[in-house]
């Protein structure tokens, strides 16, 4: 019962944050509501018994990634969003198409859902077990992600640096 109450409260906070992200026009307000979404999602992960994922969610998502976003918003001094006219053809075709698609998906889900309740706390989500899995069974993908992160760091540095500063370092060498 307590689990259900916690799920409902934090689920509602989560959805409210997601809708606030859409409604706000200034990007900094959207970024802060995204932090709310990620924080309440961490609580949902805890309810599912995934302590490791909850901790990583707070540290990496709500911490590192969102700080990067807020930093870029402040760096670029982004103002409120300006509206522009959408295409009428896209509206005429898109809205009925989306309606048909969602009704079909909902019909399939309602018709064929044979889901059973999940027992909370039943999952052995101990960080030790995850480490065993990550550094043993998934060792190669883990090493590949380290290369991916390295490439991302180099790409970010090259993309964000000014062209004239690259020219300068070339001349100095």
């Amino acid at each position, binding site marked *: 019962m307590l689990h*259900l109450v916690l*799920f409902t409260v934090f689920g509602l906070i989560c959805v409210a944050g997601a809708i606030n992200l859409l409604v706000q026009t200034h990007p900094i307000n959207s970024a802060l509501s995204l932090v709310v979404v990620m924080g309440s999602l961490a609580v949902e992960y805890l309810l599912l018994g995934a302590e490791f994922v909850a901790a990583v969610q707070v540290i990496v998502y709500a911490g590192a*990634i969102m700080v990067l976003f807020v930093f870029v918003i402040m760096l670029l001094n982004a103002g409120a969003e300006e509206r522009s006219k959408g295409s009428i053809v896209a509206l005429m075709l898109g809205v009925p198409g989306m309606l048909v698609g969602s009704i079909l998906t909902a019909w399939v889900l309602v018709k064929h859902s044979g889901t059973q309740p*999940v027992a909370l706390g039943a999952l052995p989500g101990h960080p030790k077990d995850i480490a065993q899995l990550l550094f043993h069974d998934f060792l190669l993908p883990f090493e590949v992600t380290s290369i991916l992160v390295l490439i991302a760091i180099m790409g970010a540095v090259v993309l*964000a640096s000014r062209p004239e500063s690259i020219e300068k370092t070339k001349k100095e060498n």
Partner: protein
Amino acid sequence: MVPLFYYLVLSGILFACGVTGFLIKRNIITIFMSIELMLNGVNLSFVAFAAQWHALSGQVFVFFVMVVAAAEAAVGLAIIIAVFRTRETLNVDKVDLLKL
């Protein structure tokens, strides 16, 4: 005891909010945040299914999704800075060099 169904509904709502934001927003940074919202919705369903089937590999997959999201955020924000430097705007409708 919370049914798996509820988690999937929450995950679907988050993903739908992300898709809507991606389509209706005009600020390039907010569009990027909508993508992060979609990734979070998918992560929630990963963890919910991992709990349902007592398979820890679902949580390991969430870890990989987070690593890819972090790399994507770093490169994407660098691209946004480069776009802003050359075009002086964050409005995606004004970045239309490849448009006919």
